[in-house]
């Protein structure tokens, strides 16, 4: 074995920039293919906004996957529940939402988001205790339990809110676009990007600057050793699961406003995208999840514009390509 001599400097860890450069390269490569600059800017902003919303919904799931080794196929239920709970405040106060005052809009929107996150997080507590706890370490049972939970949750939502799609208009101050030359950038997409970025920075700060964050990062890598150091990782699991559920609830409200509608199956298509993001990002990697979400959104938007017939399979092709390049995802954190 080669040992470093006492005075040899330790080789510095190489910064793995390739995944970060990937979406930038993809966006630049699309300029000549898209042709019009304004269309390219619109598609790119749409991709970033969609990517941020998918990231918000997927970030909790990647930690749940990475830290807890739990295959939660019911994650989408938290998205739909968040959206429905949001309507409980957004619809009765529709007049304030449609007022031409940003403050009045936010006075309704912020409590709606907070309530959606609180209820989704609380639902996460129940799901973890009732459905997940008995099947830790048993993947097949986890799939059955969480898929069953998703079906029950969807049918419960149909029973409570009915099968009809509920329209959810954007607040007045978030409708329309910022016009920069001949480029129009939707205001809501800018907000989505800012919220996604804020969530990403907040998660990074917690993971890198707090002892809880250290425990989560350590637990993703080696749960057993964290326990051997005297930490009750089950409590950490529960906290992460609830946070992931609450973030899914936040993503649910944002996605519902983006699509301006809510229905019980709204998360079905999203769930596929979220799983692709979590897999290509690398299980447990927040950075990988962030880049993966942007890539998935870019492929969906650019692909839909350039080759609409391939739109449905484009993200599966992206996943295949990424996994052929890096079989454990863009940033491998766990050995799974």
């Amino acid at each position, binding site marked *: 074995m080669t*040992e*470093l001599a*006492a005075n040899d400097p330790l080789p510095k860890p190489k910064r793995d920039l390739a995944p970060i450069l990937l979406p930038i390269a993809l966006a630049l490569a699309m300029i000549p293919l898209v042709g019009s600059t304004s269309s390219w800017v619109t598609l790119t902003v749409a991709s970033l906004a969609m990517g941020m919303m998918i990231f918000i919904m997927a970030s909790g799931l990647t930690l749940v996957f990475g830290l807890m080794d739990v295959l939660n196929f019911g994650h989408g239920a938290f998205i739909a529940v968040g959206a429905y709970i949001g309507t409980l405040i957004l619809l009765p106060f529709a007049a304030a939402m449609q007022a031409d005052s940003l403050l009045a809009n936010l006075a309704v929107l912020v409590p709606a988001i907070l309530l959606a996150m609180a209820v989704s997080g609380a639902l996460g507590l129940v799901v973890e205790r009732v459905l997940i706890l008995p099947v830790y370490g048993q993947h097949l049972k986890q799939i059955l339990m969480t898929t069953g939970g998703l079906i029950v949750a969807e049918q419960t939502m149909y029973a409570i809110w009915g099968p009809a799609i509920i329209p959810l208009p954007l607040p007045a101050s978030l409708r329309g676009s910022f016009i920069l030359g001949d480029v129009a950038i939707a205001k809501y997409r800018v907000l989505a990007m800012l919220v996604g970025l804020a969530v990403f920075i907040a998660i990074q700060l917690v993971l890198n600057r707090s002892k809880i964050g250290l425990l989560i990062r350590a637990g993703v890598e080696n749960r057993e*050793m964290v326990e051997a150091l005297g930490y009750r990782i089950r409590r950490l699991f529960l906290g992460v699961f609830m946070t992931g559920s609450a973030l899914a609830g936040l993503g649910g409200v944002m996605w519902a406003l983006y699509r301006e509608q809510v229905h019980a199956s709204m998360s079905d298509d999203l769930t596929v995208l979220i799983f692709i993001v979590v897999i290509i990002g690398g299980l447990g990697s927040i950075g990988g999840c962030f880049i993966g979400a942007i890539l998935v959104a870019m492929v969906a938007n650019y692909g839909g514009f350039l080759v609409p017939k391939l739109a449905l399979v484009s993200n599966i092709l992206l996943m295949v390509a990424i996994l052929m390049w890096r079989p454990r995802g863009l940033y491998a954190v766990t050995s799974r």
Partner: protein
Amino acid sequence: MTDLLKLSGVHTHIGRYHILQGIDLVVPQGQTTMLLGRNGAGKTTSLRTIMGLWQASSGEITLAGERIEARTTPDIARLGVGYVPESMAVFSDLTVKENLVLAARDGPLDDKQLDWIFGFFPALRRFWLSRAGSLSGGQKQMLSIARAIVEPRKLLLIDEPTKGLAPAIVMALIECLKEIKRKGATILLVEQNFFAARELGDHVLVMDNGTIVHRGEMAALAADVPLQERLLGLSLEAHQ
């Protein structure tokens, strides 16, 4: 001399395999007890069972008079047991500092204790802010041991610390463990390296097929070449 750790009739099953088949052992307070034996004899399983990482299927495990066989791993760690696994299990994505911050469960890192650790393992000071994954094998082992001793522990369970390390690093580790011993630590140490075992051990337990087949003083085993050959299949002279 009181017994800090006592195992009575401990059996451990892993799946359908019956690994520990009625282990009886004691680890006296303030002493170093070596656990020797060929590969697959059940040494690592013994440590993992004590640590609660694998549940004993029957038998009693007592730490300082308190039954622990049904306790969870975090509870056992909080009773004052430090564990250094065979795989080292440093958190490679975390820095050296972050690894030790996590190990200092009861509060901030103690500067005096850190200086004491750095006295043995200067590399840890030098690479304080480097990712543990970029350390060499020997440095990772140093970090793994440092993690177990960064706060005072009643009992240290150490699994093959010299495995796969260069001779110079092995000697440094032996010196460190001797110093830890001198400070009064109680250690149960699994070791394949008979030289290290002779240097460190007060008592010895030899395992085979999931049972203890020999117990006695380490010095007596080190002096008895035929016994070494019978129990371990090699002599100290052959090992050196």
